[in-house]
Structures are given as structure tokens and as C-alpha cells.
């Protein structure tokens, strides 16, 4: 499995001098499972990736969406393979209770907000809605998507290929006291306990013995807000230990975090982690 970080920044794209080295594009991970092209999330990092896929005339493209907050979908209108008439783009995400995935992407990409309607592009675009915990296959890759604790409907992904495992767990508050997802917030105490347990098991299942776990670490401990749906590096380290992962990538960096601060965070948590640990950098390539 070949992995390239195309966007590592959380919340919104950061074009500023303080973040040039770690990168300011919003989440996007390029994953090659052999010849199969998988992309996780469509933040602004997907724009340069699209240019590369056009150059090599990649036709079959599978886009796994964690959730539809702006920073995870806003790059899609600028993804050039949409204009390749031979391309077939399949977009996957957990089912939303109130509207279809197609409708959500159409809202983003139509007048008056965007000049080229998603219904008018040359490529074939297909939407596939996923069921929480139901495994599925893309090419030789075995994939599952599990619900996470974050406002709205959010899923993390586990991708297994060639005996290696990649886990993508963003966005999430891993051990937060408040249930944030659609359908979780208003249950009885008993239902809430069940949800908490379910979500923690889900994160553990996603991460179990992963060779690489990419994890939301938006907050530092003194910044933590329990109702935002994001984690701290210690939460990710805790999950990494519980799930016996090989390597942990800190991800979804806070927009104002400078490159120097990122260096210091990486140093500090490297000492605490029972596994390899690094802060994800835009452009970084890894091979599992």
C-alpha cells in the first residue's frame, strides 16, 4: 500500500506563512492498493492530486468520505478527473438519515454557489452509501467504515491490503464525555452508555493492529472543548496503545498551529507513545 498525505490541516485551508512546512490544505489522503486508486476525503489537498490523476489518465477512482463538513468535501469541485469523460468516480460515505449523499454533493456543486453543476460534468460519478460496520471490497482491498463521535454523521475507515492495515480515524472525539453524532445526542442514560461503549469499540476495531493509524489530534490538552468532536494527541496515543498499532500519524492540525509548534508537539508525544509517532506533513509519502 502506497500512501501520500495531500492535505493534513483541519477546519479550513490555511494559506499563511506559519504553516508552509506542514501544509495548509484540508484533509485528503492518496492511497494505492496495488493498481487501485483510493482517496480518503476531498479537502483542498485533492486538487493537485486530481492534476496528477489526469496526467496518468487514471480512470477508476474511489473516493472514501469520512463526513461532509466543508473541510472534507470542499476540494471536490476542483478535482479535474470530473472533466475526464473516461473517468468513473465512485464516492462512498455512511448514509445520512435526512438526505442522500448525491444531494449533499449536488448542493455544493451547482448554481448559484459553483458554476459547473455536478450533473453536467463529463466523468461518470456514482454515489455509494455505506452501512456502519459492514465490510466491503474495492479491488484487492478489504474496507470497513465505522461510526465515530463527531457532530453529524462521521465514519472512520480501515483499509486492509497485502497483509497491511491503514486506519483513518478523523474527525473524532475518541474519549469525550458528550455524544455528538446525529441520533446519539438525545437518548436515555442507558442508551447513551451503550453509544459510548459502541463508539469506543468502533474506534478500537478500526485501529486494531494497524500498521499506520492516522488520527485527529486537533486539540492540545489546554484547548480541549468537549462539544467540538476532536481529540488530543494523548487520546490518539491511548488508542494506539490499546489497539497495538505500529505507527501513529497526528493529523487534522489546528489552523493556527505553526510549523514550530508542530515540531514541538511531535517531539513531546514521541516520548510518550508506545509506537512510532509523527505529525503528518503535506506531501509525505509512505509505503506499507
Amino acid at each position, binding site marked *: 500500500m502506497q500512501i501520500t498525505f495531500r492535505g493534513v490541516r483541519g477546519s479550513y485551508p490555511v494559506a499563511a506563512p506559519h504553516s508552509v512546512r506542514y*501544509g495548509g490544505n484540508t484533509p485528503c489522503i492518496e492511497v494505492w492498493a496495488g493498481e487501485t486508486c483510493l482517496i480518503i476525503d476531498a479537502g483542498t489537498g485533492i*486538487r493537485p492530486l486530481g492534476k496528477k490523476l489526469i496526467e496518468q489518465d487514471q480512470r477508476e477512482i474511489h473516493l472514501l468520505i469520512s463526513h461532509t463538513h466543508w473541510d472534507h468535501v470542499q476540494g471536490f469541485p476542483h478535482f479535474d478527473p470530473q472533466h475526464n469523460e473516461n473517468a468513473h468516480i465512485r464516492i462512498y460515505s455512511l448514509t445520512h438519515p435526512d438526505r442522500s449523499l448525491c444531494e449533499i454533493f449536488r448542493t455544493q456543486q451547482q448554481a448559484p454557489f459553483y*458554476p459547473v453543476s455536478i450533473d453536467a460534468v463529463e466523468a461518470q460519478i456514482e454515489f455509494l452509501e455505506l452501512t456502519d460496520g459492514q465490510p466491503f471490497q474495492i479491488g484487492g482491498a478489504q474496507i470497513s467504515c465505522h461510526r465515530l463521535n463527531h457532530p453529524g454523521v462521521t465514519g472512520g475507515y480501515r483499509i486492509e491490503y497485502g497483509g497491511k492495515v491503514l486506519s483513518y480515524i478523523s474527525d473524532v472525539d475518541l474519549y469525550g464525555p458528550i455524544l455528538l453524532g446525529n441520533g446519539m445526542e438525545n437518548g436515555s442514560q442507558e442508551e447513551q452508555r451503550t453509544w459510548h461503549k459502541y463508539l469506543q469499540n468502533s474506534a478500537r476495531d478500526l485501529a486494531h493492529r494497524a500498521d499506520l493509524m492516522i488520527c485527529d489530534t486537533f486539540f492540545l490538552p489546554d484547548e480541549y472543548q468537549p462539544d467540538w468532536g476532536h481529540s488530543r494527541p494523548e487520546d490518539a496515543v491511548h488508542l494506539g496503545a490499546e489497539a497495538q498499532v505500529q505507527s501513529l500519524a497526528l493529523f487534522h492540525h489546528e489552523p493556527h498551529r505553526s510549523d514550530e509548534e508542530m515540531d514541538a508537539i511531535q517531539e513531546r508525544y514521541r516520548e510518550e507513545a508506545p509506537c512510532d509517532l509523527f505529525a503528518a506533513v503535506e506531501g509525505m509519502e509512505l509505503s506499507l
Partner: protein
Amino acid sequence: MKVKLWGTRAQVPVPHPNTQVYGGNTVCVEIEADDAPTLVLDAGMGLHWLGNHLLKNAFGRGEGHAHILLTHVHWDHIQGIPFFTPMLIPGNRVSIYGPDAELASQLVTQMHTTFCPVPNFFMDDIGAGVEVVEIGKSTFDIGSLRIHAALINHRAGVTCLGYRVEAGGRAIAYLPDVEYLEEMHRQEVVDLVQGVDLLFHDAMLTADEYPSHRGQGHCSIDDGIDIATQAAVGRLILFSHHPDRSDAEVDAILAAYSDNGVEVDAAREGSEYALQRD
């Protein structure tokens, strides 16, 4: 009157080492003048950083009032609004002007929980007091600033305005997205920008690139030069840089247009232009 550029990039924010000079934030311009509240032209990603700056004064205490003039609602002109932190602070007031009867509901669509985890401050009981005002071709005052709005041609499916702002006998005009398909389109803009000191004008496409993009809502840089010449503009500021344009490429464009009988500059994020009272 003072003009500060917080975002100069067209279409999509471009964080990249090659955009550090001219900037990667989508369009946003701040105008300051004596006896006028904060005036902002367009609300691209640059608006977030302007918001952080404003928090240092009245907006941090919940005592600010910002007026935001939108040219149109393509994402790159409104995507900074959810991240404009002064809107989260009760007591602040934000008035947003734009050219569509559906403007209020369009801005609320951007804040919908499907897309946006930030509390919807367009609701009465959350954050700043927000007012959304539909405008068309019109002239009105905001404090000491006189605003002229004109309907201009951009792209099918969206209504688009251009603005002229005057104070203390000086004037600037702002046309980040415009295409001239008919003589009428050109005349509308020439009338609006006549004699301004600074013209911030769409420069997304070079003359070589334009023919293959005709009808897509952007003119060529040569059109900007023509308009500036025809309207006796003081200085033309090339604005709305293409997302693929590197700093070196913008430098080269600027050099190529340095000898046209019109003073030309390229918009740099962070630049300030001070226009002394006449």
C-alpha cells in the same frame, strides 16, 4: 481611505510555498475611512484572518459593526463567513449585502449542519446580530463612504455586482470576477470605474488563456488594461489570481504589462494602499 488586501486568489484557497508572495487566500478586501464602520468587499478565506485582526479592537468586546459587500455567492466569495470569528460574539453587528433575493437562505445553506459544525449565527439567539440586505444597481452611504453598486456580467446562474467606493474625494473600484461578452457589459463597467484612483480587476486569465475559457465568467488581463485606459483609472491592480499561478508567474505577468500607458500592479495579500484625502 485605506485599502487592505486579505485575500487575492480566485476559485479556491491555495496554500503552497509558491503562493507566499501574492497570497493563497480567496478574495477579501478591507476598507477603512474616517467616520465609517469597517467595510469589507467579499468574504473569501481572507475574511477569517481579517476577523482575527478585528478581534483586537471593538469586535473583541462585542461592540463592532462590520458591513460586508458581496459581489456574488460563488463559494470563493463567501466561504470565509463561517470562520469570521466576530460573528460568534454577542453584541457585534454584521450587515451583509449582496445581489440576490435568496441571499439570506443561500448564506444559511452554507451554515447547515450537514456542512458546517460552527453554530449558525444567522439565527437570532446565536452570536452577533446579523442583517442580510439584498441590493441591485444602487447608490447608498455607509458612514462617510459612498457606495455605488452595478450589475455586471460574470457567469450564467449567478447574479454579480461590481462596486465603487468613494471617500474624501478619492475612489476605488472592485471587480474581482467579470467577463465582457457584449459592448453593453463593457460600458456598464467603464461607467462604474470612471476616474477611480485604484481599480481592483479580474486578472485570472492571460490573453493567451482567454479564448479557451470564453463564456466561463472571466475576462483576459488585456480587457482590464483596456477598461483602465478607457476609464482613465489611476492605477490598475491585477486581482483574482488563478489558483495555478505561482508567484514567479505573477511576477512575469506584471513585467509583461509594465509598459502599457497604464500604471499596473499585482494584488498581494497583506498589501495596504493609503489614499490621502483630496
